[in-house]
């Protein structure tokens, strides 16, 4: 990229507003977007699959899928996209902004909810708004170093986790009842103790950077 960097941040103030990034940050992310997409306008799943650093991530497929998930676009649509534009890319990224000092308590609460929502969507692959045992089990299996632990143990763990959710949220469930799946409210409830503020965010670079080759 020898020419002057695209000042996309300045050109599109709407982006700044919708995503909460600064124009500098948008520029940097745009550079990255172009790098990933091969200078095209959209990114497909193959582009993301090709990132070498991501290969060792156990939940790689879930992460990639999250980018193509319509629910992460702050719309109420469900389903998945085939390719995403830069704007949609930014929308997904905006889930990971760090909290700033000026935020009020409600804004922080909303941010936390947004991040929890992101995690929830990662589990709920069929988009019905509930995490079933199968879906949860899949994620747990991915997390456990595959090959070194039994599938049985993953099942046990998932069952125990679901039981925890059930007994915390629906304490009067009788032995015969059928716990359908974790809804978002239950999900929030069970993860109340999870400390997200200091961990689930990225320090997006403000200054212009120079990318040397593919990373």
């Amino acid at each position: 990229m020898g020419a002057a960097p695209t000042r996309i941040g300045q050109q599109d103030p709407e982006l700044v507003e919708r995503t909460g990034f600064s124009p500098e940050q948008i520029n940097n992310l745009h550079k990255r977007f172009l790098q990933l997409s091969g200078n095209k306008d959209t990114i497909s799943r193959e582009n993301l699959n090709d990132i070498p650093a991501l290969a060792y991530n156990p939940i790689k497929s879930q992460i990639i899928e999250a980018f193509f998930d319509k629910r992460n676009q702050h719309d109420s649509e469900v389903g998945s996209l085939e390719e995403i534009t830069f704007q949609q890319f930014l929308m997904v990224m905006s889930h990971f902004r760090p909290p700033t000092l000026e935020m009020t308590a409600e804004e922080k609460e909303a941010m936390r909810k947004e991040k929890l929502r992101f995690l929830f969507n990662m589990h709920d692959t069929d988009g019905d708004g509930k995490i079933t045992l199968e879906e949860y089990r899949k994620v747990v299996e991915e997390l456990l170093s595959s090959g070194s632990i039994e599938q049985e143990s993953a099942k046990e763990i998932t069952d125990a986790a679901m039981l925890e959710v059930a007994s915390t949220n629906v304490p009067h469930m009788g032995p015969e009842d059928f716990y359908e799946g974790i809804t978002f409210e239950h999900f929030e409830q069970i993860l109340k103790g999870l400390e997200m503020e200091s961990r689930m965010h990225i320090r997006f670079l403000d200054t212009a950077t120079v990318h040397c080759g593919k990373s």
Partner: protein
Amino acid sequence: AGESEKSNLPVFTMNYPRIQIPFEITLWMLLASFAKIGFHVYPKITFWVPESCLLVSIGLIVGGIMYSVNEKPPAVLTSNVFFLYMLPPIVLDSGYFMPTRPFFENVGTVLWFAVVGTLWNSIGIGMSLFAICQIEAFGVQDINLQENLLFATIISAVDPVAVLSVFEDVSVNEQLYIVVFGECLFNDAVTVVLYSMFSFVTEMPVVEPVDMFLGVATFLVVGLGGMGFGILFGFVAAFTTRFTSKVQEIEPLFIFMYSYLAYLVAELFAISSIMAIVCCALTMKYYVEENVSQRSCTTIRHVVKMLSAISETLIFFFLGVVTITTEHEWNWGYILFTLLFAFIWRGLGILVLTQIINPFRTIPFNTKDQFGMAYGGLRGAISFALAFTLPDNIARKHLFVTATIVIILFTVFLQGISIRPLIEFINVRRTNRKTDTINIEIHTRLMEHTMAGIEDLCGQWSHYYWKDKFMKFNNRILRRILLRDNRAESSIVALYKKLELQNAIEILDTASGDISAAPSIISLQEEKKNSTKPKKKFLAADLKNMHDILSKNMYKIRERTVSYTSKHALPNDNQRREILIRRHSSIRRSLRPGSFQTRVSMKPNNAQEAGILHRGRGMLKAGSDKVKKVQAEFCK
């Protein structure tokens, strides 16, 4: 005949002087330890009053007793004894159990507060005290600027011992803890420099600008030298442990010897010994824990904790004793103003410094955090010992000693006792240490992997960039040199334990312990039928096993060292090392009961192992038709 009376063979003799010194040391140690036991008789006391206060109080009482019988205290709390024997174990403990990940994430802030903060405090307090000295009414006009600055340096050193014992109990959020903790440890460099600079300067009639320049140069030498020595000794220690597989009984010794050596060598050159020992511990821990055997590892941790506990107890205890028995010089004005200025300058310092550094931080400090930091700046024994090492040519030495003691007692007692209710009252962000639900444990890891993935995806390294670079360097070069290669033995042990775990989980499902080798397909089908109805009974032990499995087998993000744990508890050994799992996953795969058709090549070494292996194969019956419909019990 007239010879002198023959004395009979003495049956019972006493030779006290011979054993006096070790005997008295042991007695004092026992006394202090009994005090420690005694506090826990009433748990309510230790909840409200930090242990340091209690120990000082007991020391005061004992000191009072000794004073009234005109007995001199043991010449134990000389500054030599303190700095050479009592302080190193405590600092070693702090360095060894320092949570490295948060530390390195905040290292800039830590150094900022340590260096600039201490400078600010020293100079501020010194100057204001000098201004006070000019007022005739207080009668301290003879103290010149250099002496004031010297004194200010002594009392601006925030003390790790005091702070840790208080902050631990309050369990503030990790960021706050690590910043204050780090500040305590690293302000030693500044204190050493300023102290030697000012004490040198008090002997000189005139201060020249070149001395200021030299002061800065000294600071760099002291700070970086301390770190350098520490890292050097750390690497040497790690390298040594590579060859100690045959002498496992003395493996722990190397850790202590090398860190102590680092400390002493730094003292030799008058560079920051605290930084040396902290850096040594930080560097060496990572490699040593992989090299030494499990038992040595446990021994090391135990002994480090024990030594530091006893040192800390003794320090506070003697603080109390010596308070009564030392010569005091009291001056209302000077002492009260010292207190006042110490507070004001610390508060101001934290405020100003935080404003400057907040924009650079990912998680800025809010006002409550700042209050916690300012209020948690306790002074302790280091100031005390430094006061004792003041050169005797300072006329007002006793006044300084008295003032130091007053400040220490004030901060330890008043601030120590009140910090817990205050922090709760203003609701500083606390940390949640208990991952007592499986969901939280799973999702913590899920979150971390997600973040790592997103970071890789958008290519934003921020401060992980240097860490990644270092990790690559580490993996390629350092680990090859410093680590032992032969791990075959430990992998079998790990395997054995893993199978035992699986066995334990299997037992819950098959009440009759049916170990017939049924084909896997059947049990899977049964499982599917009941898949959406998790209605099994989980015993507390099984849940614990699950936590174990989760913590051991989930993919780890980065090499995790001991995370933020409680000061007085031994760290949990449940974190299995990733390296074992990664390297020997092939062995495990071959042993999976799913592949029981193709039998394993590994022959069990003894009957017990054979039993485990055999039962491991029977795991497939799990959950087949034994659905139980009861509530779960959680382990807490």
